[in-house]
Structures are given as structure tokens and as C-alpha cells.
């Protein structure tokens, strides 16, 4: 990165490639996957399948945007899956009980922001590591959810509540949300003071403080923002099917963290982009779908994902070593 910036002889293209290396790798993987699988099995490219890949997984991409910010700021949140489960249940319950739709959408999102702002406050001011706080939060949310609902499913939600199933201009609203939020978050992180503060705090907290940034407030802000994204993801998750299962979606937090990391967010903090994490979420969805079309048993999906994470991380480490 620094060597590319310092040598004027290098082309702009080269600089662009260095800056967005991971994103380009992920994007090329998606393109290659579409080409290969599409050639083997043309139905992979059918409208229904592409639709289900993008719309069905948009909520994961949106949650990964918030998670990316958390990781960039040098933290982690293992409770996001439980939070999304809780949000979906609150939203569904409100909708079924006859509350106005705007309330069924906004109340759970505000709840998510409040919960995560609380987590952020604990993390920022008591210096308890975020993995410990969110581990506790995971227990609280998961236990609370199952105790409150007894695992009962929510059905018969009003049609106007099902925002994920709406299709403005023929494209599922979940996809609109995913694209718009990724774009907004990317611009926000790159061009606002707060966005730069997130990178600075993740890179070196004390240096950030010396530069006049308030690290505590930045951390709380990042957690609250992450709550906002998790909230929106939860609403989309709640409304994409006709039923809400009132449980914590298994392993959702891992899928979200993995999307962030594969997308190029450095787990050491201080680097990464949300475009990468969204692309990575799409890549996962494509792989999952491709395995089915290639007649590979779906049971192997997770093993493939695991290998991919490992390969990405090792490649990232090798690249870092070469850069040094």
C-alpha cells in the first residue's frame, strides 16, 4: 500500500488494484463462478435462482456492513445472530398484534440500536473486551428470546408488513436495501470525519486520541450504527418468508463475521471496506447455490466455506509478509 503510494512511476491502475485487491479477488470469484456454473447448468442463471441468491441473502450482507465497521474499529460482536432473531420476533409480534406497520418496522430497529449502544458503552468505558460483552449478550438475547416465545412460530403477518417481498421497479426491495446501504456506508466511512475516526481508532486507539478523536464516543457510535444495520437486516429476515421461527438463526454470527473478513476487513482492525463484505456475502450465497446445481451434496457447503476462509486468510497473511 505505502510503496504503491510513494512511487510515482506506478500506474493508477496498479494503485487501484493494490487498494482494492481483496474486493477485486472476490468480484472475480463471483464472475468466474457464474461463468463456470452457468455453462455447466444454465438454470443457475435463471431469474428465479439469481433472485433467490441476491434477495435471500441481502440481510446477511447488510448485517456484514455493520460487522465490518465493528471489526475495523478493532472490536467484534458475536451476538449479532441472536439480535437478528430477537428483532425478527419483536417485529413479527407487533405486526400480528395489529400495530401500525411503521411501528412494527421501527420499534425493533430502535431496540437494536439501544442494545448495541449499551454494549458499546460497556466496551468503551470499562475496557471489557467486546468478545466478552457480546458473549454475555448472546446468552441474554438467546435465552430471553426462547423463554419469551417458547419457540412458537409467528404466522399470518399482514401483507403490507412484508417489506422484503415487495418489488419496486421489479427488483426485490431487499436488493435495493443491500445496494443502497452498502453505497451509503462506503461513502460515509470514506468521506466523513466519523468514518475516518473509525479506521483511526481501529488502527491505534492512543494515536487516534492524540489526533483529537474521542475513541470512546467513536466506539459507542460504531456499535449503535451496527445496531441500525442489524435492525434493518432483522426486519428483512423477518419478512422474507411467511413464517418467523422465533429462534436464533444458527451460526448466523459466524456467517456475518466471515463475510466481513473474506471481504477484506482486517481482523487486526484499521482496514477494510464494506463493498468487500457485501461482495463476500454474495459470493457465499453463490457458492451455496452453485453446489446444489453441481450436484454436490449441500452437506459439504460448510467445509467449502471453511476452506475458503482459510485460503483467504493465508493469502492475506502472505501478502502482508511480502509487503513488509
Amino acid at each position, binding site marked *: 500500500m505505502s510503496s504503491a503510494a510513494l512511487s510515482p512511476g506506478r500506474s493508477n491502475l496498479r494503485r487501484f488494484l493494490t487498494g482494492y485487491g481483496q474486493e477485486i479477488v472476490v468480484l472475480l470469484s463471483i464472475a468466474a463462478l457464474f461463468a463456470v456454473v452457468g455453462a455447466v447448468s444454465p438454470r443457475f442463471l435463471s431469474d428465479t435462482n439469481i433472485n433467490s441468491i441476491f434477495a435471500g441473502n441481502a440481510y446477511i450482507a447488510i448485517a456484514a456492513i455493520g460487522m465490518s465497521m465493528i471489526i475495523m474499529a478493532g472490536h467484534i460482536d458475536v451476538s449479532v445472530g441472536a439480535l437478528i432473531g430477537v428483532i425478527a420476533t419483536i417485529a413479527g409480534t407487533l405486526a400480528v398484534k395489529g400495530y401500525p406497520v411503521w411501528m412494527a418496522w421501527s420499534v425493533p430497529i430502535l431496540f437494536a440500536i439501544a442494545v448495541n449502544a449499551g454494549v458499546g458503552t460497556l466496551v468503551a468505558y470499562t475496557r471489557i473486551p467486546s468478545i466478552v460483552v457480546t458473549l*454475555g449478550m448472546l446468552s441474554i438475547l438467546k435465552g430471553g428470546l426462547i423463554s419469551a416465545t417458547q419457540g412458537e412460530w409467528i404466522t399470518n403477518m399482514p401483507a403490507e408488513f412484508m417489506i422484503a417481498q415487495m418489488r419496486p421497479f421489479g427488483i426485490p426491495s431487499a436488493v435495493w436495501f443491500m445496494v443502497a446501504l452498502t453505497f451509503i456506508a462506503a461513502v460515509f466511512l470514506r468521506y466523513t470525519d466519523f468514518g475516518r475516526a473509525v479506521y483511526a481508532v481501529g488502527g491505534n486507539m492512543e494515536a487516534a486520541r492524540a489526533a483529537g478523536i474521542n475513541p470512546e464516543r467513536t466506539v459507542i457510535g460504531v456499535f449503535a450504527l451496527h445496531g441500525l444495520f442489524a435492525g434493518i437486516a432483522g426486519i428483512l429476515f423477518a419478512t422474507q418468508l411467511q413464517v418467523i421461527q422465533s429462534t436464533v438463526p444458527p451460526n448466523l454470527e459466524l456467517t456475518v463475521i466471515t463475510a466481513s473478513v473474506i471481504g477484506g476487513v482486517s*481482523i487486526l482492525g484499521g482496514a477494510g471496506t464494506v463493498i468487500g463484505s457485501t461482495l463476500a456475502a454474495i459470493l457465499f450465497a453463490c457458492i451455496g447455490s452453485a453446489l446444489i446445481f453441481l450436484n454436490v451434496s449441500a452437506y*459439504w457447503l460448510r467445509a467449502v466455506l*471453511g476452506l475458503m476462509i*482459510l485460503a483467504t486468510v493465508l493469502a492475506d497473511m502472505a501478502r502482508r509478509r511480502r509487503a513488509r
Partner: protein
Amino acid sequence: MTGAQPKLLRHETVLAALTMIAMAVLASLSDKFFTADNLLNQGRLMAEVGLISLAMTFVIVTGGIDLSVGSILGLTAILLGVFWKNLGLPLPAAIVLATVCGTFAGFVNGLIITRFGVPPLIATLATLALYRGLAEGISEARSVRGYPEWFFFFGQGEVLGVPFQLWVLGLATAAAAVILGLTPFGRATYAIGANEVAARFSGIRVNAVKLWIYTASGFCAALAAVIFVSRVTTTRSDMGTGLELDAITAVVLGGTSIFGGRGTIIGTALGLVLIQALKNGLALSGVKGDGAIVVIGLVLIGAILVGALFDRNRGG
């Protein structure tokens, strides 16, 4: 190290007092709680998480983490079933071979972390997915049952009136406490967690120590898998899901610093007992099982919060 010692003891004293109070309250809520039968049975349920927590204490003291233990447990369990049923190996050979594979999985974690310098959180996040994926792929979600009667001894048998796995857990706890507290290996573990670079410069073979610890973590998970399969009499690929979080909770509740350099086996043991007592006692006194999870979450955050405030008041 001497400065940290009283602080450590303080956390453990607080925890021991907390455990006593919890026990007393739970005993007053239900007369079934404080019976020998119930307590021994709870010890049975504690063994699997307990074994994993012991190794996890070492891992976290070095400043690392191992998220893959639940998946290693699942993979070992599946391999045990497959080796025995599908490959037709004699059951003892299948047990040994599966345990070796689980240990090797831990060794691979250690290699990724030490050879390539991958942060443990990420390395074991990847292998969490990979090992669970292998378990799912190999088993195709089919369960294995029909084990011979003698095999159930590990998970259901008793020696001198005490469940077999409680003996295993007790011995392992004693061994772990001695290794971490009294041997050069234990001191190296603390030194790595306190300052890895300084440890390297003072002649500690940092990578070798870490490799041993992650391998031991895999071994403990594999051992837990054998006990688990024997206790529930079947093998399924989703065994041990989420176990890593239970183990980390016990370790952190026991006063081990997630940043490394501090922590004891006694603390972990107390953390384990407190969690199991809460789960069981609350269930017996009519709180539904999931209410207990909420309480455990609250206790985890609360205990760490109190610890952090103590540290601050002491100018730490």
C-alpha cells in the same frame, strides 16, 4: 507476577463466595438441588465442557482463543462412528483413531497460528467452519447408533459411586493446575500472554509452546467427544455446537484475562461449577432452561464488570 497474585486471588475469592451463595440460595429454593444424586449427575453433565475449558484456559492465558473446539468434538464423534460402523474397525481402535484425528485437528490450528501468524480468532473461526463442515459432509447428517454395552461405561458408568467422567475431569483438572501453576511450561504460558516478544527474547520457544497448547486443546475436545458419544449413545454431526462459547464463558468467568497473561485453573473450575449450579438449580426451582442462559450472560458481564472496577480502584 507477584503484583498480580493478590488480585488473582481476590477474583477467585469473590467467585468462590458467589458460588457458595448461589448454592445456598438454590438449595433453599429446591430440596432436590443439594442431594448427592443430583450433584453427581451435574458433575456428569459438566465433564465435557470442563475438559475443554481446562485447555481453553491455557489457550486464553497465552492471549489466544480456540473457537473450533465444539467442531472438533463433532468431527471426532462422527469419525468414531464412521470408523466403527462404516469401516468396520474394532471399537477400541475406532476410539483411538478418532481421538488421534481430533488431536491432529488441534495441531493444525496450532500450525496455522504459529507458522503463518494468523490471529487465533480468525484461524479457529475458519477451522470451526471447516471441521464442522467435514463432520456434516462425512456423515451426511446420518446418525450412528447401536454401540456395544461396554462402551457406555465412559459416559454412564461409575467408579466407587462417582461417575467415571468426573474422575477423568478431576484428574485432568489437577494435572492442568500443576502444569499451569508449577512448571516451566506454565510459566512460559503466562510469559507469552503477558508479552510475546519479551517471552521470545528471554529464550522461550513461543511457537513450540503454543503448538503444544492448541494440540492439547484438540485432544481435550476429542476426549470430550468420546465421553459425549458414550453418554448419549448416538453420534450426530451437530454435537458440540456452541460448546466453545460455554467453555470461554467458564474460563473468563473464572478470572482469566481475555488479553492473556492472567488466569488460573482453580478459577476456571469455580466458573464451571457456578455455571452448572445456576443451570441446574434454576431449572429445579421452576425457571425454564433458557432463563438460566440469561442469568449466565448477566453473571458473565457482571463478574467481569466488578473485576474491571476493582482493577481501576487499585490503580491497575
